[in-house]
């Protein structure tokens, strides 16, 4: 699904990472660890096609097969969960999206608050909605940047359920790998 050889990323004079090889297929989970500022987020953005590499060769799948969750949940705070997911469902051409949206909101415990504005949500609820958005089009490649951020015990269990699904390739970047480690098949550590 992803093949990367000798990947490097440079912002001006600053070399973020260099010589990184990545192979990721369905059923595999790549755990990217490292301290803050080590390049984890940048690598995920490169793998999502959101940032260009400075060197190396990279094969990526079509962008509609990618689900990307960044540091922020990437949802509109002045819209409701239902409005957010309906918008992204429209842009992702999801057939029968009402049913899919309802299923995801139920799964992530947001059905009862589906008509409330996201700005009134706790950070953990926003993160759950971010996970709903990223799973909406059932991506075959899932790229998650610090997905356990702000999640409570129930939220972490829901995240574990997502990571345990084997029909997609997953890359997770985190500085706290405890909740992801049991699912990891491959590891990449930044210094």
């Amino acid at each position, binding site marked *: 699904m992803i093949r990367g050889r000798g990947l490097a990323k440079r912002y001006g004079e600053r070399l973020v990472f260099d010589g990184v090889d990545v192979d990721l297929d369905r059923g595999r989970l790549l755990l990217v660890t490292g301290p803050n500022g080590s390049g984890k987020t940048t690598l995920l953005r490169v793998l999502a096609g959101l940032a*260009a590499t400075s060197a190396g060769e990279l094969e990526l799948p079509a962008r*509609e097969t990618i689900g*990307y969750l960044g540091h922020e949940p*990437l*949802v509109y705070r*002045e819209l409701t969960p239902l409005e957010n997911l309906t*918008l992204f469902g*429209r*842009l992702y*051409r999801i057939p029968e999206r009402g049913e899919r949206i309802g299923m995801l909101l139920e799964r992530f415990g947001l059905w009862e608050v589906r008509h409330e504005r996201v700005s009134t949500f706790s950070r953990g609820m926003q993160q759950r909605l971010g996970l709903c958005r990223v799973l909406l089009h059932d991506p075959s490649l899932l790229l998650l940047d610090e997905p356990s951020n702000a999640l409570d015990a129930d939220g972490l269990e829901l995240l574990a359920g997502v990571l345990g699904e084997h029909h997609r390739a997953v890359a997770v970047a985190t500085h706290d790998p405890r909740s992801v480690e049991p699912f990891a098949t491959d590891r990449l550590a930044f210094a």
Partner: protein
Amino acid sequence: MSYFADVGALARKDLLLELRAKETLPSMLVFVIATLTIFHFALPRGTGHVAALGLLWVALIFTALLGLTRAFVAEREQGLFDALVLAPCDRSALWLGKAIAVFAFLVAAEVVALPAFAIFFSGLDGRTVVAVALADVGIATVGTLLGAMAVAGRARELLLPLLFLPLAVPIVVGGVGGYLWFLALYDAVFGVLAWASFEYVVAEV
């Protein structure tokens, strides 16, 4: 048809956001009315129509700039460009949806600003109203593209005025002179350029 449905959904989203947040349009209205009021008292009596018209265009351009600086606030602050550009829709639909919303805000501000100008100064003719409408199309199309470019830049608050104001000079020239054909040509040329180049602007936002 799917393209226009995407555009409609994106424009509706921006209008809904403004309806709820009420941040951009009230600021534009206060700014344009305050500016016209200042011009009214600053100009000596007996000032000519063309001079007053010039000040109207100055007020409209800076009001538009105020709106444009707010156009991508949600996308910038919440990193939403990442989610939007990964969607399989045509990326120019993101630009067109936003440009339509910006156009709507401009029209809403001018619905108040133009009658205020007519009261404060020497009335308003139909040609000026048509010129303003044509200018709005150009401002929305060019301004939305530049707004997206500014999101990617570090000094974004500085970047947008620096990019937008030079490109707004032809609009002022066409508007004050009442050259409707010139404004229509500007809209057509810059509309096509903005539509075609947006894909590259958001390639690494």
